[in-house]
Structures are given as C-alpha cells and as structure tokens.
C-alpha cells in the first residue's frame, strides 16, 4: 500500500498541490476584477471565483485518473499484492484528499481575506460555508464520475455519462410536459417535506448521504473494474 501511495504522490503531486491554487481562486478572481468591486461588491465576485475554483478543482481531480484505462497496467495492478481493490482504494483516497485540501485552502484564504478586510475597516462576508456545501457536491459528483471512468475508460466513460444524464434530463422534462400537474405535485411535496423544522436535519442527512455515496461508488468501481478492463485499449 505504501508503494501505491508513493506512486500516487510521485505521479500526481502537482495535481494534488494545485488544489491549493484552486482554493485561492476567490481571492485571485477578486484581484483580477478589482475594478468591478465598486459596482457589484466583493462577495459576489468571490463566490464567482469559488465556483470557478470548484470547476477547475473538479477537472484536476478527474485528471488524476488519466492513464488508468490501459489493459497492461490494469492486469499488472490486479496481479500485485494489493490487487485492484487496494489500487482503487488509494485512488478514491487521493481524490477525497484533494477535495479536503481544496476546502482547507478555500477556508484558509477566506479567513485571511476577512482578516485583511477587517484591518481595512471593511466588513467582508465569509464564504467558507458555501465552500463547505460545494465540497460535498464535489464528493457526490466524483462518486458518480469515477465508476464510469473505470467501467468504460476515460474518454468513453465521460461520453456515456453525458448520454445518461442527457437522457435522464429529457425523460424528466418530457414527463413534466406530458403531465404538467406532476410538477405542481412535486413542488407541493417538496414544500411539505422541507420546512423550517426539519430543514437542518435534511441538510445533515444529505451531507452524510454524499459520504455514503462516495463509499458505495468505491464498491461499485471494485465490482466493475475487471469488466471495464476488457474494453480498455479499444
């Protein structure tokens, strides 16, 4: 296992460390759009920067998986002492670590910015809580992305994932168009389910669900890995 972690670090250390830069995106965007602050305020620009950082971080997290979809490597790692399960575990841990590093960087930079703003007599709004929610969204997205990569390969996997999502969206829109009353029923159900009393509970359950989904994603990837290997290099 140590060897796999070492390989991960040697191979992807720049991708891992780039999370620190992505976490600084809110302040970097603020510096780039300095002249706009007077018009729209610093908080919306920082939130925009945060979103840009989240997208960039997501792309870099998936870049870690680049090159995994090769038969020779897949058979070799399957035959190693840790097996493909150990290898996938290290991959999942690395990506989770990258998400955590991104959040740590965002929070550190945000606290630093708020401290500087306080010294200047300004009242900066912290965006760490938004970053925290974004972090859980990232965990959920990676939980969906990674099994597709291992089942179908990097390129094909992203296309199939896209087709699945577009199909699901089309089916959803079509069902709502065919039965407009359904949309109202859904909205009404949401309104009755989510209220001030159980809002925080649902949110906390949602956060746990993201973590559980990530673990389940690992188990699914383990199940699909050897099937996927057969399709690599085609």
């Amino acid at each position, binding site marked *: 296992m140590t060897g796999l972690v070492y390989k991960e670090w040697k191979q992807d250390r720049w991708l891992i460390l780039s999370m620190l830069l992505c976490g600084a995106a809110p302040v970097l965007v603020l510096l780039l759009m300095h002249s706009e602050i007077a018009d729209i305020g610093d908080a919306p620009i920082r939130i925009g920067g945060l979103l840009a950082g989240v997208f960039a971080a997501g792309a870099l997290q998936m870049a870690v998986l680049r090159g995994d979809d090769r038969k020779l490597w897949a058979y070799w790692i399957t035959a190693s002492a840790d097996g493909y399960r150990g290898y996938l575990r290290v991959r999942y841990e690395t990506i989770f670590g990258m*998400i955590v590093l991104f*959040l*740590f960087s965002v*929070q*550190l930079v945000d606290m630093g910015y708020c401290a500087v703003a306080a*010294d200047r007599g300004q009242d900066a709004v912290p965006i760490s809580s938004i970053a*925290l929610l974004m972090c859980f969204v990232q965990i959920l997205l990676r939980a969906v992305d990674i099994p597709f990569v291992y089942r179908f390969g990097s390129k094909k996997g992203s296309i199939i994932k896209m087709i699945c999502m577009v199909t699901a969206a089309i089916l959803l829109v079509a069902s709502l168009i065919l039965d407009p009353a359904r949309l109202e029923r859904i909205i009404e159900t949401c309104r009755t389910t989510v209220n001030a009393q*159980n809002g925080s*509970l649902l949110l*906390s359950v949602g956060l746990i669900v993201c973590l559980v989904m990530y673990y389940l994603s690992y188990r699914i990837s383990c199940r699909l890995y050897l099937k996927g290997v057969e399709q690599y290099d085609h």
Partner: protein
Amino acid sequence: MTTKKEDAKRLGIYLLIVFLSMLLFVLFRRPMEASTTVYFIIFDLFSFSPAIASLITRAVTKEGFRDMELHLHLAGNIRWYLLAFALPMICFSVKFFLPIILTGHAGWLAGLTVQDVLSNVLTLAALSAVTSVGLIGEELGWRGYLNQKLEPLLGTVGTCLAGGIVWGLWHLPMDLVGCLNSGGTISEAFTICGGRMLALTFYGVFLMWLTKKTDSVFPAVIAHHVFNESQGALAALLSQCPIPEDADLGVIADVFAHLPMIVVAVLFMILLLRDGGSEALRPAR
C-alpha cells in the same frame, strides 16, 4: 534501531522548537492586538507548530520522514474511525446531560427534539470527515512524533503524563491572550490552562491508543476535531432548553466535568498496558 540517547536528543530539539513557537505570542503580542491579519497569521503558524517542529527535527537530525503515520489505513480500521467520532460525543453528552438528569431536572431537556439532536450529530459527523484536516498541524507533532520519542524513554504511562503536560502547556499562550484580551487576569489564564492540561492528559491516552491501533494519525485528528467541536454543538443544543440562568447542579456537575474523561483514560491505559509496547499494537503490514 535508535538508542535512547538519540531519542532524547531528537526529543530535546523537537520540544525546543515547539516551546520557541510559543514565543510568537509574546513577541507579536502588540501587533496581534493591533491587527487582525497579524493575529490570523501568528495563530495559524502557532497551530501548525507541532507539525512544523516535527518536520524540522526530522530534517535536522537526518532521521528521515518515515513513521510519520500519515497513511489512512482505512481497511480494517473503519470501526476505530467511528470510535474516534463517537467516544468524544458520548463523553461530552454524559458530561452535559447526565448531571441534569441525575439531579432530577430532566424536564429541562424537554425542549430538545430528536430532530435537533440527530441533525447536530450527523452534521458533526459529516464535517469531521472534511474539515478536521487542519488539526493535522497538531497531531502530526503530538501523536506522530512526540509520543514515539517519549515512549522508549518514559514508558507508556510516562508518555501519557508527559505528553499531556506538554500538550496542555503548549495551549498556555492562547489561554493567556484569550484571557487578557477579554479583561481576565493571568491567574485565570493559568487556571484555564491547568483544567485543560488535566483534560488533555486524560484524552491523550485515548488518542495514543487510537494512533497505535490504526498506525495512523488520522483517527486522532478526527477525535481531536470532535473533542473541540462537540462541546460547542452540545452547548448549542442545551441553549434551546429552558434552563434557568442561575441553575446550579452542585457537586454532581463538578464530578461529571471530569469523570467521563477519567473513565476513558483508565480504560484505554489498561488496553495500552495489556497490549504491551507500541510495536505489539501495530498491525503487521
């Protein structure tokens, strides 16, 4: 294999750097009072000083960067990760709620709903998975270095005692700054530091056991995070209850302030001693 003399030398260098970092609060006291930015920088540097000290010591003494216990070692250890989350929660729940129930004031807790309790626990669990990483700045030093060097010199019990005292003393500058800035006195700061030292010495036994059992500092990082955050979460829950401002639960509250941690310390000390030295506890890899 290193000799005790080498361990003592490395430990001396490590402790020197850690205690020198405490001087940051003295040297920068005035700028920290004047500027939030300086306070933020010094506070963060100080928070990471145990880890920085361990890295510097490893580099200076050329002992290398092995045995930093930075692997997650999740396989087979999930239950210990869950224990790292659950035990501090249970301890503080006992500390806060049991005296209220035992003194016949259970009615005060009527304001609590299952939803509130559940959402607090689940939020804390989710957050401890992603926001606890900052505490690696401490745990990499205390559990990942100090304990390893102390144990051959002082034995298991000595390590827990000395480690707890060092850990508690290290917090003294923060307590001093916090007290003085809020109009308190130096003696109050020392009282707070003393109480913290006691709690950390007890709790350190659990963290030491956890680190040895999993061969990783990460369960200790999570347990440390939950230790810090659960008190606030439970206090927030209690604030929803109709507890009178002048409520006094008497001696029972004083007893339960430390009893759960003492029980944890005794239990895990027995486990540490039963399992023998650190090598015996570490799973073969």
